[in-house]
């Protein structure tokens, strides 16, 4: 799941041109689940646009904004989309990017994408994966320090980890304290005794800009 949060709409609206006609698009997957881009939120933005005097021509929640097979299908379901000169997209950056690509239209993001995470028992789990293209999460008892430690440390906590709390804020627990707890439970402290070499960032960079056939 891609974790996103809504931008400050007040600020965003100030940057919009009154000459544009807006169509609001949501996403039926992650953004809907996180309650930042489902029907309720999309409708709310639509009516706020109307209230502010913008020309708002319609709204639609695409089943998966980052996976669109046919733009024509969407356009046939919502013909008013053709009257729009700009989209306001309530999806992650992936969604905005794909919509921009398939529609060829100007698309403004209404969300800020923060991380790859998940939802468990109604709790949002942030930063579960850093998409590093070099996964070794099994070494860390299923908890990725590269994603979850603000410094991405591979070889144990920094000196700022005190009593299980991260140095950047008392509300954050140190991911290394969680890894230690799991390591102790499984009676395997290897992750703290073995040396982990620096990450190979070339693995990630090689994929950028590529368009591959599935």
């Amino acid at each position: 799941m891609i974790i996103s949060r809504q931008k400050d709409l007040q600020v965003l609206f100030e940057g919009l041109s009154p000459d544009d006609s807006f169509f609001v698009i949501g996403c039926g997957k992650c953004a809907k689940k996180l309650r930042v881009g489902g029907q309720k939120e999309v409708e709310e933005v639509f009516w706020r646009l109307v209230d502010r005097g913008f020309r708002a021509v319609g709204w639609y929640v695409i089943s998966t904004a980052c996976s669109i097979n046919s733009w024509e299908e969407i356009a046939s379901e919502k013909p008013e989309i053709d009257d729009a000169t700009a989209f306001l997209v309530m999806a992650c950056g992936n969604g905005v990017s794909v919509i921009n690509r398939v529609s060829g239209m100007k698309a403004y993001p209404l969300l800020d994408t923060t991380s790859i995470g998940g939802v468990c028992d109604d709790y949002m789990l942030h930063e579960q994966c850093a998409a590093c293209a070099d996964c070794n999460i099994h070494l860390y008892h299923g908890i990725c320090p590269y994603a979850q430690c603000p410094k991405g440390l591979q070889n144990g906590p920094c000196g700022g980890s005190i009593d299980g709390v991260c140095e950047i804020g008392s509300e954050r627990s140190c991911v290394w304290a969680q890894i230690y707890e799991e390591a102790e439970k499984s009676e395997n402290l290897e992750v703290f005794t073995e040396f982990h070499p620096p990450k190979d960032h070339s693995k990630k960079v090689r994929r950028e800009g590529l368009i591959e056939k599935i």
Partner: protein
Amino acid sequence: MDFKRKIETGKFVVTTEVAPPRGTDTTLLIEEADLLSGCVDALNVSDNQRSIMRMSPLGVAHVLQEQGHEVILHTTCRDRNRLALQSDLLGAWNLGVRNILAMTGDHPLLGDTMGTKPVYDLDSTQLLQAIQNLNRGHDIMNRRLDGGTGFMAGAVVRPDPNDKMQLLRLKRKVSCGARFIQTQPVYNTEEFKEFIEKVSHLNTHIIAGILPIFSLKTVKFINDKLPGIIIPQEVVERIKNSTDPAEEGIELAAETIKKLQDVAGGVHIMPIITHQHTEAILKRAGMLH
């Protein structure tokens, strides 16, 4: 005898710390360093400490060495990737720097330059390993260099005998080449002894941190800005009840140093703001004659 030789021969060392200026004016830096001439073995030069932007420690190291001081160059992983770290280290060696303190570095969110991208391409153990490579005449990719370094590399630790993760991390730092360790401030010498017992099997030289307290303002600063450092109530009371808190601070620091003399491999004195009392502390502790 230089710092490296003292570490190699297991001598008690005295180090201290100076902060680079927040600008180009080095007058105060040189004045502070001059207060320490003949008192200490080496001066640590911090690297954008607490993520507050200051002059490059390499530039400061050069200035101090020109004045005849030996330096320990702080090198953090916060602001530079592995390319920049290695090239700066080669440059440092050529400028005469012989001692490096490898650290991860405080997160930029704690600092003064909002929006900074944290780098952390390496962590402190990986940096120590990279220094070992440079010392063998190889880069991080194990390719031979046209001339290697011969750094004395060190690291830092919070001397908490009960923090199992930090103890394991210390062991790994030593195995990656940390030949000296400078600790966070020590106030509770009994707890420090416990820590030393737990790490005595490690082949490294442990230098105890001393952060003298000259006023209740220092107490507040430590409590607010330096999490994890617990000042015993007895120390706070002595400062509070003293008619001359600065004098009491000198006495307290000297007492701690005396207690640590046979326990630690040295002391690292790091007063907040100024070194005007550092010489007095060392004299009182019997370190200077």
